Each structure stands twice: as C-alpha cells, then as structure tokens.
C-alpha cells in the first residue's frame, strides 16, 4: 500500500488495463506526447505506442464517436475529454449513440466504452470552464456515471469502468487530481456503483460525492467538536445510485442533508431528495435539505466564485438548522 496522488492512481489504473487487455486503448487531446493535461496518461505513449495512446485533433464529437464505433467492433476505448465543458460538443456521440446503441440493437452490440473527464469549479477559469453538468448525464438512461473522490476509488473505479460492457463516464474533478491517499492495488474493490459510508454518525446523514466529500468530512469533524455526529455517505456513483445505503442511513438518523457542487435547480440533490422522501418520508424528522451551487454561471471574480459553491460554513449552518441547534459564532 502506498500514498499516491489521484492522477497517479488513474495513471496506474490505465496502465494496468492497457497491460492486461490489448483491446484497451485511449485517445484524446494531448494524452500522448504531452502525457495528458492532468498527467493521467503520462508515460503511456512511450510504453504502448501511438495506436494505443492516441493524440487527437480538437474534434470531440467525432473522436468520442470513434470510441463508440470502435467499441462496436469489440475494442475497449477509453476516451479522455479534456474537461466536461468540451463534452457538450460530444453530446450526440454520448447521448444518441453510446447510450442508445446497445438497446436499439436489441442487445447485439455491447458498448465497452469509458469516457474520462474532469468537471467542477476549479480556480477562476470562468463560466465556460467551471461547469459540473453531471445531472445532465444522469438524465440519460443507458449511461452510467462513476464519481471517485479518493485515489483508491479513482484507481478501482476506472479499472472497473474499462471492464464494463456498458458506456461508463468516469467523472473526475479538477481539484482532486493532486489530492493524496492510500491506494491498495491488491484489495478487492467494492462494486463500481456502491456508495460508502466514509464516516459513521447518529444525528444526521450527509450525502455527497466527488470533491464535496472531503468538504463534508471536514464539516463532520467540526460538528463533532460541537457534539454532533454527522454520517457522511460518499455516493461514488451517480447513475445508478445505491439507494439501499442511503435509505438505511436515513432511516437510522432521520435527517438528511445533501451536499452537491452542481447548481441546485434540477440537480443531483433534487433527484436524491425526491427518491429519499418517497422511501423515508414517515421516518424523517425534518425536510431533506440541500446545500448546492448557486443557479448562476460561475463568476470570474475569485470571491464570487468561491461563494457560488458550497463552503464548509454552508454545510455547518445547514446541519445545525436541520437539528434545530443555535448557529454559534461562525
């Protein structure tokens, strides 16, 4: 077991799958010679050659479509889209093709396609480069979405995604690439779509994913000092969602707080709240609450940008309010 960075975990996972199966190849802008914008494919072109690690032109729609066509012939493409913002050019390939072909063909064509891309608000990249968009993809039956928040999950979920016969989006986060954690490459990993309780707690359940998980864990630590035990669930997958883990927790704590970086309106939290109230309504002591991004294109100005997505104090306030506790100084 060793401590490595999130991007290194992805790099090792990709390397392992390229080594294990010669049907696996990766392509995208600057994945080869440059080693990937976030270094995820560093060293792989030298190791596997340009047919397996392919630098592409800026042609997202068609190189993602290339992944779809190649998957129909039994290859296992790993398409890197530099950021989720550029995936909007590839929506036809993802939504009309990858998500539909296995079904429309009556099951004749599996779709062992993996799409890797980071999303999220980073640091002052402006409104076009700060989108999250995950709820858009959740609304497409036929696509599966993994959202690793730790190097360990990045490693295993990417490997599992590549081995899946369904199209799987591995949604990374621009601010997680340089986060550090232990990676056990021999462990038996939990299933790709299983949620995990990152921190147990009796007083309320906080459901989160991706970069909001470390934020929720910090908030849980701060609440612990106030005598509040907040359970933190890392969804790890947005489609499908592991309802059993969420429901079991909410039935125990009777209170639920959802923390998402994406915009609040019609977002991930809306889906979670709707489903959980259907399943847990009579066990809830308070309405399910959401802490989410503002419904605003991300402002460039640093302070406004920071205020446009959940901060630790937003989580603390919402948690205290859910428990009818005084807000204190912070």
């Amino acid at each position: 077991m060793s401590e490595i960075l999130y991007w290194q975990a992805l790099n090792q996972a990709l390397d392992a799958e390229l080594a294990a199966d010669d049907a696996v190849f990766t392509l995208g802008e600057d994945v080869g010679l440059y080693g990937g914008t976030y270094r995820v494919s560093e060293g792989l072109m030298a190791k596997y050659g340009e047919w397996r690690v392919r630098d592409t032109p800026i042609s997202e729609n068609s190189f993602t479509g290339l992944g779809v066509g190649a998957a129909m012939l039994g290859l296992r493409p790993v398409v890197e889209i530099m950021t989720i913002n550029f995936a909007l050019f590839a929506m036809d390939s993802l939504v009309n093709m990858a998500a539909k072909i296995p079904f429309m063909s009556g099951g004749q064509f599996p779709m062992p396609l993996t799409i890797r891309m980071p999303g999220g608000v980073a640091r002052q990249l402006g409104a076009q480069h700060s989108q999250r968009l995950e709820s858009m993809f959740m609304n497409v039956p036929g696509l599966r979405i993994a959202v690793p928040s730790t190097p360990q999950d990045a490693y295993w979920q990417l490997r599992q995604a590549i081995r899946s016969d369904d199209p799987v989006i591995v949604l990374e986060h621009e601010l997680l690439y340089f986060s550090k954690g232990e990676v056990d490459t021999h462990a038996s990993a939990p299933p790709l779509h299983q949620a995990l309780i990152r921190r147990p707690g009796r007083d309320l359940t906080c459901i989160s994913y991706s970069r909001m998980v470390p934020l929720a864990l910090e908030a849980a630590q701060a609440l612990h000092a106030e005598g509040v035990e907040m359970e933190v669930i890392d969804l790890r997958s947005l489609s499908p969602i592991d309802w059993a883990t969420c429901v079991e927790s909410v039935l125990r704590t009777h209170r639920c707080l959802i923390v998402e970086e994406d915009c609040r309106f019609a977002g991930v939290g809306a889906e979670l709240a709707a489903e959980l109230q259907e399943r847990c309504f009579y066990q809830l002591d308070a309405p399910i609450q959401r802490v989410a991004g503002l419904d605003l294109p991300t402002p460039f100005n640093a302070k406004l940008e920071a205020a446009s997505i959940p901060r630790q104090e937003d989580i603390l306030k919402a948690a205290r309010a859910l428990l009818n506790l005084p807000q204190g100084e912070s």
Partner: protein
Amino acid sequence: MDRSQMQGLLRDMLRARAFEEAAAQGYAEGKIAGFLHLYPGEEAVAVGVLHAAEPGDYVVSTYREHVHALVRGIPARQIMAELYGKKTGISGGMGGSMHLFDRERRFLGGYAIVGETFPIALGAGYAVAYRRLPEAVICFFGDGAVNQGTFHESLNMAALWKLPILFVCENNHYQIGTEIHRHSAIVDVYKRACAYGIPAEQVDGMEVLAVHAAAQRALERVRSGDGPQFLELTTYRFRGHSMADPGSYRPEAEVKAYEAADPIAAALHEFQLRYPGAADLAAAGNDCLQRFTDHCCQEGHLDETALARLQAEVQAEIEDARRFAEESPEPSMEEARAILARNHRLETVVEAQA
C-alpha cells in the same frame, strides 16, 4: 503607408507586448489567476488585421484575445481590470481573461471553447447581410480549431450565403502540446477554405505590413459583397500555451516521453524549460516586433529618440492600467444576480427563490 500609419502599427505592437508582459507579471505575483493565454510573438497578426478594420466591423475572438481587444480600442485599464476580476473590467469582472466583450466597439467576445468563434461569426455575418450593410465580421481562431466540426459547417454556410466574414487563422503550429503535423492531415490551413470555394491566402504572420495589406484586400472584398475570405497567418507563440503550461514539449519533450519508460531516465525526469524563448527567436531574427522596429528605423520612419519616447509612453499606459486594476473595487453577488436577471427587465418573470 505613411509614417503615422506605420508608427500606429508599431505603437500597437509595443502596447500588445507590454500589456501581455504586465499580465504575466500580475500572474506571477498571484494577482491574476485562472488560465492566462498570452500573445507575445503573434502581435503582427492582430495588429495587422485590426488596423485594416473599420469601426463598423465586428470582431470575434478566442481565449487568447487580450491583444485583439486592446488593438480594437478597448482601454488597457478595462482589459487589465477584467483580468483582475474587478468591477471596472470590460465584462464587469464576470468574464475574466478569456471572456472580454465590448458591445460599443463591436467586440463580440472571447470564447474559451475551441470552435465557437465560427458560428458566432456566422450569425453576425448573417445579421449584417440581412440588413445589407457594408460591414465585415472578423473571425479569429487557431490552427487547432480548424478540426472542430463547427469550422467546416460554418465555412460551408458562409460561402453558401455569401456572408461578409473574414476568417483569420492564427497558425502558431501548436494545439497546446500537439504540433500541427500531428493534428492535421493538411497543414497548409488555407487550403481547407478552397474546399468551400472561399478565396484564401497564406501570409507570413510575422510581417505586420504583409498582414495588413492582405487583410485590407480581403476586407474590401468582404465589404463589397463578395462573400467570405480566408487568411492563414503563420506565426509563433513565445510562451507556453497558457501560464500554467511550461511548454516543455517541443522536440526535447518527445525524447522525454520516450525516456520516461526508462527507469534511469525517469529519475532525471524534470527537464528545465527548453521552449525557445523570445530572446532565442529574436536572435534567430523572427520576432515580429523586432523585425518591424528595424524596418521602421531603416526606412527612416523612426529614430532612436522617437522609439524611446514611444516605448516610454507605452510603459506609462500599461503601468497606469495595472494600477487602475489593482485599485478598482470588486463586484458583488448582488451585481452578479442583477446581470443574470437583466434580460428580464422588460417582462414579468417568476424569479427563482435562492
């Protein structure tokens, strides 16, 4: 071209260089954040083309657009303030470095998603043709952008409907770390325009006078209703793709990538910057600014004192812009919300509760 026009070109090239160096400085000091794509090396392109433009023309640009904005007439103060995310910025601090907009100067924006400038220009060209006005739309883009589907779709429609658009490819031979021979089957970009019957020319983008002359010819034809024109201007950027990119990938990087598979070489992993810098290029005689300055001196348009005065004026302007940006106030969240709701002002809309 008379002496004052020549000096105008030179002045703008100097302003462009000085502005970008000041932006780099602001970034190094941590006062500017985010992606910062700079223009040194490519000045002759924006300056040559935009000096051929009329106030009635429209300009559409990319994320590498500070200089286009500056030469178009947006005050350095307002551009710099936008880079600093200030309220006094040309986009109110909401857009940032990659999204400068100026309605008054017909600057239709900087776009950060590669391939977006084509359809924007197409629509602007459609609106101009629709109103039968003698105006042109100038559409800037890089060599990497021509592989986006929007390029082909837009060129076809522009040619089909004879829209008044000047397509300007700033061919600096790189799509971030991917050199043009590795991203394009046809590396003479202008040839692609021929597929749509659009008159196209390849010009040395390091020669401001050549760029200016070509742009003037093309714009005359565009304004006279001949339909779209295409210019490929070959150039080079001195810095990395953005401030976040050390740009260490040119030929030595190829070696590095292959050596990375070698465990011994891996230990020697971090290479120093090998990217040819401004000094290397100037020494090789291919800095557009140096070339044009020499030309102006040789032709007797400029002497040393005049040049020194020009440089001092430029430095003062940029220093003023920097100070203005630093001292300007930041925008508020209320302002951000008001901007988002601005288009509601003439109607009743149910406002979302936050």
